[in-house]
């Protein structure tokens, strides 16, 4: 029998993260990366942002969005390195870099949102 691996779980998280990223990232990036900096619409004030981030639902939403998107990105980037550069022999190192990076950033997300005033 084949050895049990964590791969199916990683592929499931990859898909879930892909959906979340596709649905929610474009509009948020459009607003915070282009529309607000270029002055096409009024940037939310600090007070408003604090109010939004103070809401538990916003925090849960942001944590799910960030952590799932990171796992998705880590998984896909891993295969981009495998296929694009054909560096499958660096397997362990790539996994450590991709999933380790996603984990560290997810923990940072959690800490940031947890300690919001």
């Amino acid at each position, binding site marked *: 029998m084949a050895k049990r691996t964590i791969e199916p779980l990683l592929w499931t998280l990859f898909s879930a993260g892909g959906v979340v990223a596709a649905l929610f990232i474009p509009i*948020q990036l459009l607003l915070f990366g282009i529309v607000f900096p270029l002055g096409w619409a009024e940037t939310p004030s600090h007070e408003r942002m604090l109010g939004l981030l103070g809401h538990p639902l916003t925090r849960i939403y942001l944590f799910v969005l960030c952590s799932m998107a990171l796992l998705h*990105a880590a998984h896909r980037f891993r295969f981009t390195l495998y296929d*694009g550069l054909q560096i499958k022999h660096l397997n362990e190192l790539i996994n450590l870099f991709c999933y380790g990076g996603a984990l560290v950033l997810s923990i940072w997300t959690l800490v940031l949102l947890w300690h919001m005033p």
Partner: protein
Amino acid sequence: MSETPIYTEYHPRWYRRRVSTYWWLERTSYLLFILRELSSAFIAWFVVFTLLGIRAVKLGPAAYQAYLAWAASPFLIILNLITLFFVVLHATTWFNLAPKAMVLHWRGRKVPGEWISYANYGAWAVASIVIALILLL
């Protein structure tokens, strides 16, 4: 069988034609594939950009203003424009693939693939409108 064959992950022993490291430049479809895969790096960048924003809000009004000024610098705007291209590429390729990944049946019949794609695009529109309304109003 008395012996289990040695399974070498990622290192098959059989003959393989050598593939150039730049194989993805050979055809447009290959290039599009690798660009789609590269969208992952830009999704990671979006998360970092967002987390820095949350941190700035947490640190106070001055830090938030500094963050907004940084986001308005030409380099960041260009980077975020490129990121937007990749993020939209991810979204559209993802929704177009959805019917292939998810086959639905209703009353014993297969739901047409286009419907699943349309449902995804619809959800995308609703999610975008809701977020835009929250942030703009």
